[in-house]
């Protein structure tokens, strides 16, 4: 009896989970994208902007952890904090005070570094209009089935973002860049996150479809930094990204958390500024968009109900073998290169020999001259 109840429980559980599987499978195909890209940009230099680098690196870390490979991440860091000589712990960038979490790690791949992080390079990366000599790691090779995550952090203002202390990108430029990307079919859906002061101004001008934007603060508000570390001496993270990182740490590749959860990250009580978001250009319902649609990398799995009998073909051959009773030579792999010939035999060198006619002619002439010079009387000594 007990066994029966156990079995029935197991059966119902299985059926329930199988139904879940169907649902999950169904959900896999609702987003319409086949690959994921991430463009993570830190636009500030100098040691006191440590937190911007830490912001970008923490998003990088999450995105990598959730499955996007380095080949699909364009990481742009305007300054090197890990190897800055003011860093008391070199080769580390911490996001939590007391050095709890090193977001630098040992497999960071920075694609644009230092002075390469410029407005022009950023826009060229987005639109794909790079010189032919640009290596693949510096290119955003997305297609119309790509979901792209774009994360910007730095110092901003109403309608602009400061790059490298010397230039700015405006929200109009950014919107036009996204429109170019849409027209060139360079994205399926794009998630734009910006953590700067007055960040919401940057997504005000977007007009291309399938864009979702989040910002850390509204127009007129400043995004604040989270906490300083007294040993390092600077603020380690910005508030919004700090709580974003906390949120993302709970996400795993098969998580079902959706965008609505993302909008709830860092409420005013924690962030002091009011995070904003924009979903009017997004064609799907944000509730149906998973976090992993943008922060992770999807693997296409095709579920099939067919079963393939693997043993049959071999049997077929054996039957033929038995039936025909012919002596077949054993099959073996053919060498791609005639290795044995190369190793064991030296190529036979064809020696050049002067043609016989030449030798004959030459020596006849020499003999003729000899006899002409010294007279024919010598001939009798030879013949």
């Amino acid at each position, binding site marked *: 009896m007990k066994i029966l109840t156990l079995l029935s429980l197991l059966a119902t559980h299985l059926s329930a989970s199988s139904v879940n599987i169907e649902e999950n499978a169904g959900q896999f195909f609702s987003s319409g994208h086949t690959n994921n890209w991430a463009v993570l940009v830190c636009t500030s230099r100098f040691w006191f902007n440590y937190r911007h680098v830490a912001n970008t690196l923490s998003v990088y870390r999450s995105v990598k952890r959730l499955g996007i490979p380095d080949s699909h991440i364009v990481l742009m860091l305007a300054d090197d904090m890990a190897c800055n000589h003011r860093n008391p712990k070199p080769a580390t960038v911490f996001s939590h005070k007391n050095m709890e979490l090193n977001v630098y790690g040992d497999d960071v791949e920075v694609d644009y570094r230092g002075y390469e992080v410029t407005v022009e390079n950023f826009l060229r990366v987005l639109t794909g209009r790079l010189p032919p000599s640009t290596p693949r790691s510096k290119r955003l090779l997305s297609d119309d089935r790509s979901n792209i995550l774009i994360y910007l952090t730095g110092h901003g203002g109403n309608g602009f973002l400061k790059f490298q202390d010397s230039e700015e990108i405006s929200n109009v430029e950014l919107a036009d860049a996204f429109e170019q990307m849409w027209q060139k079919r360079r994205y399926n859906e794009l998630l734009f996150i910006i953590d700067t002061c007055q960040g919401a101004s940057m997504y005000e001008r977007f007009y291309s479809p399938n864009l979702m934007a989040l910002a850390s603060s509204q127009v007129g508000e400043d995004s604040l930094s989270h906490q300083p570390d007294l040993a390092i001496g600077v603020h380690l993270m910005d508030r919004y990204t700090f709580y974003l990182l906390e949120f993302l740490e709970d996400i795993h590749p098969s998580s079902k958390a959706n965008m609505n959860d993302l909008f709830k990250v860092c409420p005013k009580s924690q962030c002091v500024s009011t995070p904003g978001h924009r979903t009017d250009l997004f064609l799907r319902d944000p509730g149906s968009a998973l976090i992993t649609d943008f922060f992770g990398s999807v693997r296409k799995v095709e579920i099939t109900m067919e079963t393939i009998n693997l043993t049959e073909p071999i049997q077929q051959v054996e039957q033929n073998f038995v039936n025909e009773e012919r002596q077949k030579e054993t099959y073996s792999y053919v060498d791609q290169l005639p290795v044995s010939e190369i190793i064991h035999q030296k190529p036979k060198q064809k020696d050049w020999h002067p043609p016989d006619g*030449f030798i004959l002619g030459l020596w006849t002439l020499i003999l003729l001259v000899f006899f002409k*010079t010294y007279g024919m009387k010598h001939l009798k000594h030879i013949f």
Partner: protein
Amino acid sequence: MAAPLTLLLLVAVTVRAALYRSSLADLISERVEVVSPLTAWKRVVEGLALLDLGVSPYSGDVFHETPLIIYLFHFLVDYAEITFMLADVITAVALYLSVKDYNKQVFRKQKYALEADRYPLDCLELIRSPKEMQYIPLKVAMFYLLNPFTILSCVAKSTCGLNNAVIALFVLSTIKGNVLLSAIFLSLATYQSIYPLTLCAAALLYLLQRQYIPVNLRRFSFWWFVAQYAFMYLGSLFVIVGLSFFLLGSWDFLPSVYGFILSVPDLTPNIGLFWYFFAEMFEHFRLFFLCVFQINVFFYTVPLSIKLKEHPVFLIFMQLAVISIFKSYPTVGDIAASFIKHHKASSASSLNIFLVSCVLLACSALFPVLWHLWIYAGSANSNFYYAITLLFNVAQILLVSDYFYAFLRREHHLSHGLYLKRKDGSEATLVLK
């Protein structure tokens, strides 16, 4: 005479063998002063290797020697050192024999002149006696064999040694009076490098005089002899070129050998005058200056042969010197060939032999120094090296003109007496205009 010659040959062969065994052989065979793109041994080996791989040795700008050299070294490549030593030995023996023969003729002519009372009385001391000329052939052979330039050229296995051997054999056969052999050796020499063509006139003059055919443009016998010689020369040249064609089955040795010599495409620095000029010449003028430079070599034939028609052997040596200065890729081997004229015992009348020899020595020493400074240290440039090249060639030209002057002065003294007087009786000196 055979014993000292044999001793000399042994010494020379020993010196060369010793240098072959030492580590200097590799060093010397790479010096640009000793080997040129025409004569380098490295290129011969390269050409033979290409042939073994089934490719024409003249493809690519590697090999610029004649097909007969290919034939020769196809069998002798393992004995290359012995071949080159043998070539030097042949050159020395040929020179020895030719000078001996020539001395005999000089004495004969002198005897006739003395009997005919053609010499003024006060220049009897200028007349050569057999006693003082006894060691001249040996000295000539010694000069050639123990000349550092020759030794360097032999140790570097430069095919210039073979060229010198053929020229020496040509000189020997000319002086012996053998028309056919002279024509054949001259055509061989011309076949290898075009410039011995200028020796044609000298050989013709000598052979004409030997056969007592007067050198008179209006006489039929003169032209008949010239036609005979030209026929033999050109015929053997064509035969040799045809044989070369049959050796490799193609004509591409013609642009590689003769085109290379005449059009000077390779501007590696050497001790000649061509490379610097053509390195900085505009393409527009290149053909013009090429013609000028090449004509310069052949140009001195006519005036020299007119002036020296009584002394064709001296003419031969003058021509050799001119060739070695003005040819497109000279090496020290050619210089060695041109120093053969040192045996003339007229150094008493020459003006500044000492100065010129010092300049030559200094330049020879400075060549490797400035090369190192230019190429390796980077503190000099091509102008330094070219300056030394220029100086070397100027010294050579001065040497040639010195000897010319000495020779002419001696002849003048022999005909007009040792103490020259102007028309009014005061003392006069000879000046070479």
